[in-house]
């Protein structure tokens, strides 16, 4: 097992573990944006740059996907590594000036402002980290959105910029977006959930008791198809919102107790 010496701290890691894994183990923080441990690493945002000792020189590499194969020495807090990360953050702040989450991360990195103007016209506030695209493809399995175009005009969109037919309205893309650009919007009158800015919509399942939207019908269908269960009561309970479900269960409990103890009414 190779040893990583990271900012002076030594730790053994499995072969092909990443520098980021090693850093996490010893409690050294390295900022990340496009990295998520449940997904493949693209290393496209370049915010996790660190230096690796090469003897006569030091190489700047991305910590999230650099595989450790032999003993190496890594510098996270060196001037050059810090400057590299800050430079990248300044470019990102210029790209996504309205993101609160990004500004918070920047502050944590001691980057208070950017010296660059916002020059991009297309898809502001998206840092093109690709997490939404990857989660939809790798975890959800729908691949409803993808990258479009090339270079500065690169954007994340549904195919042909039309609402995607493959979108099931699960909202995981909104959950994983690190800069808060993707949002879920509920349209109660149409009983639909919309994922903005992709304009994709999905029908919502509503509580059969009170009419509150619960989850997208498609998600529910998919979940059910993955769970091998024939218990009819389970399926029925899925059609109730959490509040109604609790009332329903409480009602059943009280009636069970009442039946057991005769006509005594009481709730434990």
């Amino acid at each position, binding site marked *: 097992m190779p040893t990583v010496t990271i900012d002076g701290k030594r730790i053994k890691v499995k072969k092909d573990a990443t520098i980021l894994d090693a850093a996490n183990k010893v409690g050294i923080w390295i900022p990340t944006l496009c990295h998520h441990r449940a997904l493949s690493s693209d290393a496209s945002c370049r915010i996790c740059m660190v230096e690796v000792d090469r003897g006569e020189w030091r190489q700047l590499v991305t910590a999230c996907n650099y595989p450790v194969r032999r003993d190496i020495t890594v510098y996270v807090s060196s001037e050059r590594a810090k400057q590299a990360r800050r430079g990248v953050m300044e470019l990102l702040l210029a790209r996504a000036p309205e993101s609160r989450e990004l500004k918070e991360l920047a502050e944590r990195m001691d980057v208070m402002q950017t010296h660059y103007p916002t020059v991009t016209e297309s898809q502001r506030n998206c840092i093109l980290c690709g997490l939404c*695209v990857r989660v939809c*493809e790798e975890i959800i399995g729908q*691949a409803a959105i993808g*990258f*479009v*175009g*090339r270079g500065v005009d690169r954007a994340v969109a549904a*195919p042909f910029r039309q609402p*995607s037919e493959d979108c099931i309205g699960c909202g995981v893309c909104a959950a994983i977006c690190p800069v808060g650009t993707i949002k879920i919007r509920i349209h109660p009158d149409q009983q639909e959930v919309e994922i903005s800015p992709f304009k994709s919509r999905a029908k919502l399942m509503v509580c059969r008791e009170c009419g509150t939207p619960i989850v997208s019908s498609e998600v529910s269908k998919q979940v059910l198809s993955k769970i091998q269960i024939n218990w009819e009561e389970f399926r029925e309970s899925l059609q109730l919102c959490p509040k109604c479900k609790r009332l329903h269960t409480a009602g059943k409990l009280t009636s069970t107790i009442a039946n057991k103890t005769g006509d005594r009414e009481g709730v434990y």
Partner: protein
Amino acid sequence: MPQDKELIEQIIKRYDEDTGMLIPMMQDLQSECGYLPVEHLRYMGGLLKVPMSRMFAVATFYSSFRLAPKGAHEVTLCMGTVCYLKGAPGISEAICQEFHVEPGGTTRDRLFSFNAVNCVGACALAPVMIVDGKYYDGVNPKSALEILHGLQPTEDSTETDTKEAVK
């Protein structure tokens, strides 16, 4: 679309249904149709089990793919370094202004599609303009416009307003 279904099936078979050959498949499709129609891409993606998001990503990444119909003629202007230094931007501007077209687009009357590409490797002939595979060397804004005004609309692009364009 029905007869084109066969075309798409043929193309896929030609490459043994190998999704790695997606780009040559799209190139063959564009050769036949002149561009990449949405429905054709959908059908192709369905047969290959490739999600539409990837079909769209590939179709929009490479400069040679077109998602809108092209014109009766293909006009390509080289924007390589030597052509650029010898005035290619001026020629491009002249064409865009005269014919109300953008690089990568097609004129309204579908007379020609206009592409600006990087170096075609004929630097001694700079500036170079290629019309339907024919190379014109040493063009300038005036001569380029003359050549383009001389283009005849073919049967394919006959629309009611083509006569206006020819005037």
